[in-house]
C-alpha cells in the first residue's frame, strides 16, 4: 500500500523488576499511517511471536483513551508527541517514513518496572484508598436534586474528575511528583458540596500517602499539565495545597 512507512523502534526490554533492562532495536516495516501506535506495536509483536521471540509487553486495554492503562514514553514524551491524547489514540500519521522511535516505560521510583514497558502504578490506588472518597454507604442518601450545584461548579468538578490515572504527570515531572493526579481527586470533591464534610482530612490523608509512596515534590515546572492527556489544570495543585495547609494549620478540627 502506498504511503506506508518503514520505521525503526528502540524499545526498552526488561524481563522483570529484578533484572537490568536495555534498549533493543526492531525494524517496523510497512506501517500504515492509519494505524494507532499500539496497533503498530501489535504488528511488531506478531512478527516477534512468529519468530519465537518474546513479544514486547506493554499495558493497554480500552484503546479509546479513557481507561488510563496505556502509558509509554515515546521519543521522550509521555503518550508521545501530540497534545491531550493517550498513546492508544496516537496514530502513526504523526510519524514519518524512516524515523527511529524511542519507546520507554514511565520512569519513576514509585512506579517500578514489571516487565518491558509495563510498570506498577498501584501507588496511585493506595493514595485513593487513603481518602479519595465521600464516606456514604449504599442507600439512605438524599434525592439527587435535593442539593442544587451551580453549573460552573459542577463543570469545574467534572474537569478535575476527568483524570484517568495514567501517570503521565509523574512520568513528565523531573521530580516524579504525583501532585497533579492527587490534586485532581482532591479538587473534584473539594468543589462539590458532597465532599465538604471530609474536605480537609481528605487532602491531608492523600498527601501523606503520596509522600509515603516516594513521589517527589512539586517545583511548579508545569510539565505535568503540559503532558496530561486529559488537560487537568495545575490550578488543582494550588487548591490542594490550600486545603492541605488549612488542614495542618487547624489540626484539631481536621
Amino acid at each position: 500500500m502506498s504511503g506506508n512507512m518503514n520505521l525503526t523502534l528502540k524499545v526498552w526490554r526488561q524481563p522483570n523488576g529484578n533484572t537490568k533492562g536495555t534498549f533493543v532495536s526492531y525494524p517496523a516495516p510497512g506501517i500504515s499511517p492509519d494505524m494507532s501506535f499500539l496497533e503498530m506495536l501489535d504488528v511488531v509483536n506478531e512478527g516477534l511471536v512468529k519468530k519465537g521471540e518474546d513479544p514486547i509487553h506493554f499495558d493497554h486495554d480500552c484503546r479509546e483513551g479513557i481507561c488510563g492503562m496505556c502509558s509509554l514514553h515515546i521519543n521522550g514524551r509521555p503518550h508521545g508527541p501530540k497534545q491531550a491524547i493517550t498513546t492508544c489514540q496516537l496514530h502513526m500519521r504523526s510519524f514519518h517514513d524512516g524515523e527511529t522511535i524511542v519507546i520507554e516505560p514511565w520512569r519513576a521510583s514509585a512506579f517500578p518496572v514489571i516487565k518491558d514497558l509495563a510498570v506498577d502504578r498501584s501507588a496511585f490506588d493506595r493514595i485513593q484508598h487513603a481518602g479519595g472518597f465521600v464516606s456514604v454507604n449504599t442507600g439512605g442518601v438524599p434525592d439527587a436534586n435535593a442539593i442544587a450545584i451551580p453549573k460552573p461548579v459542577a463543570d469545574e468538578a467534572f474537569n478535575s474528575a476527568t483524570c484517568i490515572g495514567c501517570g503521565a504527570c509523574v512520568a513528565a515531572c523531573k521530580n516524579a511528583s504525583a501532585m497533579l493526579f492527587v490534586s485532581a481527586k482532591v479538587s473534584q470533591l473539594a468543589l462539590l458540596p458532597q465532599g465538604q464534610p471530609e474536605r480537609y482530612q481528605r487532602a491531608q490523608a492523600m498527601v501523606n500517602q503520596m509522600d509515603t509512596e516516594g513521589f517527589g515534590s512539586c517545583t511548579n515546572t508545569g510539565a505535568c499539565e503540559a503532558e496530561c492527556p486529559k488537560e487537568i489544570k495545575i490550578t488543582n495543585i494550588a487548591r490542594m495545597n490550600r486545603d492541605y495547609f488549612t488542614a495542618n494549620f487547624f489540626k484539631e478540627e481536621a
Partner: protein
Amino acid sequence: MKLDAKIPEGPLAEKWSKHKFNLKLVNPSNKRKYTVIVVGTGLAGSSAAASLAELGYNVKAFCYQDSPRRAHSIAAQGGINAAKNYRNDGDSVQRLFYDTIKGGDYRAREGNVYRLAEVSVNIIDQCVAQGVPFAREYGGLLDNRSFGGAQVSRTFYARGQTGQQLLLGAYSALNRQIHEGKVEMFSRHEMLDVVTVDGKAQGIIARNLVTGEIETHAAHAVLLCTGGYGNVYYLSTNAMGCNVTAAWRAHKRGAFFSNPCFTQIHPTCIPVSGDHQSKLTLMSESLRNDGRVWVPKTKELAAQLREGKIKATELKEDERDYFLERKYPSFGNLVPRDVASRNAKEMVDEGKGVGTSGVAVYLDFADAISRLGEDAVRAKYGNLFDMYYQITDENPYKQPMRIYPAVHYTMGGLWVDYNLQTTVPGLYALGEANFSDHGANRLGASALMQGLADGYFVIPYTLGDYLATIGPKAIDVKHPAFTETKKAVEERLQKLLSLKGNKTVDEYHRELGKIMWEYCGMSRSEEGLKKAKKLIQDLKTDFWKNAIVLGTNEEFNMSLEKAGRVADFIELGELMIDDALDRNESCGGHFRVESQTEEGEALRDDEKFAYVAAWQYTGENKPEALHKEDLKFENVKLSQRSYK
C-alpha cells in the same frame, strides 16, 4: 432439570418489596464470619464489593487490569437511565419498564425488568452522594438527554464520559472499604476456574498475572461481574482484555448459559480502516439526539463520493436520504440500536455506502451546528468529536462523520434467577455477565443502570438469603475439590504452553471473528450458521495443534493470557451458533433472514420462541443440552414492535 426463576408472586409493582421482606437476613455480628468473592470490578463488581463490605461481609475482589478503576465500564459514554421524571414529560417506573421490555423485543422477564426500573431512581441519588459530577442546568439541578427507544428524556450523563464518572464513584466506594480493611483487592489477577464443593460454589482458582502463581481462594459465595463476550467477534467496542473466560469456566462447572446469540451491534461506530485494526471505537448513541443519519439517494452519487469526486457537504438536501427519519417518522434517528444497525447495513448492501471502503453511512451535525452553534455542540459532544478526529483525521465539525455498526454488548450471559443466582448454588452473575434484563436488545443507557442496580441494590439483599441458609461455618480449603480444580487449571496452562505451532493466537482470534461476524452477525441464516459451526469446529482442532504460545507460566506472559482467552472464545462461538440455529425467529438483535415482515423488520414467533434458552454443558466436544424457561407476560401485551 427444571429451571426455577423464583419470580415472586403478586402484582408486578409489589414483587420486589414483598420479596425483600421474605428474604432471610444475616445478623450484623455474623456478617463478618462470611467471605464473598467478587470477580471483576466494573460497575457491577465495584458496586457489589463496596456495598457488601459496607454491610460487614469480608470481600475479596479480583480484576485483570492493574487497577479496578480501569474495568471497561469506564468507557461507557452516553448516560444512565432512571425513571426520575425530573422533566415532567410523562416518565414513570411503569414507562421505563415498558420501554425496556418492548426495546428488548419481549424476550426479557417482566419481574426483573420492573425491579430494574424501580431501583433506577436510587442509583442516581447514590451516585450524586458519592460526588459523581453529572451534567447540570444553570439552576443547579440535574440535566437529562434522550436516548434510543424512548420518547421521554430520562438519561443522566456526565459529558460523553458517564461510565467513567460512575465507575470512579463506585471505585471510590470500593477504595473506602479497602481502606477499612473490609475488601482485599487482587489486581492483575485472572480467574481461571470456580471451585465447587457438593454442588456449591466455594471458591476460585486465579492466576497472578505478574508472577504466574496459581492461587486458591475460598469463600461462601462467588459473584461473577465479568462483563460481556463481544470480543468473540475479535473486533468490537470492548477493551482488548475483555473476555469470557470466567463465565465460560463457570459454565463448564454447571452454570447454564442463556441466549448466547443475543448480541448487540451498535449502529454508530467508527468504520474499520484496515487489516491492522485491533478494536472499534463507539461514537455514543447520544449523538443521535443531534446528528442525522443519511446516505446519498442514488448508487451513482455514492460511487462518486467513494471515489472522492464529490464531497458529502456538496450534496443538496434532495440528493440525501435520511433513511431513519423517512422510515420511522415518530422515533426518527432515535430508533433502538438493532433497528438503526440493520437499516445501515441495508443501505450499504444496496450500494449506497460511503467512505473509501463503502461500508459506512453518514452521521451529520450540520443542522445542529447551524441551529445551536459550534460551541454548544462542542460542550455536549466535544470529547467524542476529538476522538473521531484523532482516529480518522477528519473534522466532524466541518464534514459528516462516517459511521457503521459494530459489536458492542452482549445481552446473553449466565442464566440467573430473580436473586441473580446461577444454576450453581452460591455462584452469582451480575451486570453484563448475566442475561436477565435486556431481552434480545438492550436500550441505550441501560447497561450502566443494570450494572449498578445489580451491585448496589439487588445483590446486597438476595445474597444474604443464601448466606443465612448455608450458615457461617468456615469453608474447608482442605477439601479435595480445591486441589483437584487447581491441578486442572495447571494442566490446561501447561497444555497451552506446549503449543509450538506456526500460527499466532491473534490469527486464530481474527479468523474466529470473521466467521462470527459473517454468519452470526447482523443477519443469520440456517445455511450460514450450519457452515459456521463446521468452520469453528475445525478452527478449534487446528488451534490445539498449530497455535504458538511462548514463554513459561512463571512470568508476566501476554502470549499465555491471550491463548487461554481465545481458546474459550472458540468454544463459546460454537454455542452461539447452536443458539442462533435453535432460535428460528427474529427478535431484537437476532435477525434470522427466514423470519421477517414484508418490510424487512424482525418477525418474532411468540408461539414457539417466547422462552429463555439455557444451555447446559455436557462434556468436551459433546452437544450442549437446551433447557427452556418459558416467559410469561401478564402485564404487557406482546405486539410487533413499531417505531414508525
